[in-house]
């Protein structure tokens, strides 16, 4: 199997707290992977390790065959942070143009393309601070896509997003994956999980289960993913 993202015995400790506790996995290209787990389970730290934003205490990560951290490799990675991470005083177009520039994109048409992809083409000249919450999330996604990265990390991309926009977002993610982009989406919303090709249940810094949604439900013998998560977390009694 081709490997887009690889984690090898990844460990990250902050003082006495172990945020990521020995994770190892390979992720294939052109798939959508869901990192599912409660708040504080280590999802964001894992994404920061995979993007090279923080150094592992032990182990290592590779993205597209390159050991992270590696600055030039960041040009092939898109990252949508939990917060909007956009400049409120700039217009939507200026935000996307700025990120295109720092990613080294020279083709101005990419900005138009990214804004159109998230349905903000007609808001290009609108100052980001005056966009609605949903529009700001869409702009944030456009800024992560503007350089057409083959690997995309999305940290809780649908937090605060209304159901209609959430459906649109997943439509974008699926189209990108079909075009060959590897997408890692972190979420604590279980009902989004079935839209992923594969799920990694994360708890206390470890991957406690991995597989397709149906596969995990069947293995856990539960009707929904939330109960399956609790089953794998060893809290079946609570779930019942």
């Amino acid at each position, binding site marked *: 199997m081709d490997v887009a993202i690889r984690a090898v015995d990844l460990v990250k400790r902050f003082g006495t707290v172990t945020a990521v506790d020995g994770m190892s996995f390979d992720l294939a290209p052109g798939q959508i992977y869901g990192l599912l787990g409660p708040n504080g389970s280590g999802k964001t730290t894992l994404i920061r390790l995979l993007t*090279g934003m923080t150094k592992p205490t032990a182990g290592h990560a590779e993205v597209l065959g390159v050991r992270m*951290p590696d*600055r*030039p490799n960041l040009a092939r990675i898109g*990252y949508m*942070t939990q917060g909007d*991470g956009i*400049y409120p005083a700039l217009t939507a177009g200026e935000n996307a143009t700025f*990120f295109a520039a720092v*990613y080294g994109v020279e083709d101005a048409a990419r900005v138009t393309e990214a804004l159109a992809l998230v349905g903000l083409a007609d808001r290009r000249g609108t100052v980001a601070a005056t966009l609605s919450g949903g529009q700001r999330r869409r702009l944030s996604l456009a800024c992560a896509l503007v350089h057409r990265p083959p690997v995309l990390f999305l940290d809780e991309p649908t937090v605060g997003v209304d159901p209609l926009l959430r459906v649109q977002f997943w439509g974008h993610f699926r189209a990108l994956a079909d075009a060959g982009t590897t997408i890692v989406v972190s979420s604590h919303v279980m009902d989004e999980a079935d839209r992923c090709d594969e799920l990694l249940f994360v708890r206390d810094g470890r991957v406690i289960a991995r597989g397709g949604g149906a596969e995990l439900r069947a293995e856990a013998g539960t009707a929904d993913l939330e109960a399956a998560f609790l089953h794998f977390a060893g809290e079946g009694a609570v779930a019942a």
Partner: protein
Amino acid sequence: MNPRRLRAIVRRVVSEIRRDRPSLALLFIAPLVITGLVTFIVRESGTPDVHAGIVSGRLNQVIAGPLEAALRDQGVTVIDLADEPAARTAVADGTVSLAIVLPADLTGSITLVTNGLDPAAEGAQIGAVQKALISAAVSAAGARAPTVTHETVYGVPSDDPITSFAPAIVGFFVYFFVYVLTGVSFLRERTGGTLERLMATPVTRGEVVGGYTIGFGIFATVQVALLLAWSLGTVHVGAIGPLPAFAVGLGIPMAGSPLLAFLVVLLLAVGAVSLGIFLSTFARTELQVIQFIPIVLAPQFLLSGVLFPVSTLPDVLKPLVALMPLGYAVDGLRQVFIRGADLSVPALQGDLAVLALVAVFFAAIASLTIRRDVV
């Protein structure tokens, strides 16, 4: 007014501030430190060290002898100088801080020559010399009290006092505003999540600091240009209808090149950009960026010769003066404004070199505060 709601709000405000240790420190400790420093400077500022040179005329036997003795009583070191041109050269090159030119006969007045760069400090020196003169006149029985004229090597002592104050004020306010603007902007970059996102791109830390420096440098350039134009220029506007004629601009005289003054302030401003980026690391809110002012900027204001002449500061504080970037800018600006110094003047060269080094140093430590493990 609902007392329960009121109590809840008060409790929240108190809890919030109680947990904000930097704010607590600034609220309670900073005022003590600043007022303590001001009081210490005001109380302990003594007569500056005066190195006087005396040009003796034929009155040597009448006044010079008692005067030298009186000057030494005041703690003034005295050397003999050949003539007035030699005295002016000695003042200009710093061999003496003040020259006393005694008159050729009893009808003439005594001329005191200083370099004119720091009128406040020179005023204190002149005061010390005048005390000695009175004492000398008393001991030289029969001599009438001498008249004293003050002249300066650069500028004229009767100038508007703002002449010496303006260079310091221009430097200080540029430093102040550039620091606040950069500190707040970069804090927003840190807290708004854009810095994290930026660091997930191939951008380097040097590019971030460089980009900020140039970006704010543009605003600093405009700010400095406006401030210098406002300070140096005077535009006379004639009467318009019932409005009488008036002048716009401060019209402060400048002996040197405005471009050199611009260069001094711009280097200071570049250092202020990096300082703002560096200190934003230690702030969590915009208020905290402002709260650093008493810690970072107030000591510079007090110890850089803006308000108190450096030469009159208490000895224990003098070593700190060399650590204040603003001090080099104030001195450089005074060299340009009053002395008319150009790039061949070593004092100005030194000021510019230190300001450039400070800018580079703070840029380096500012880039270290932008954390990313990617090299």
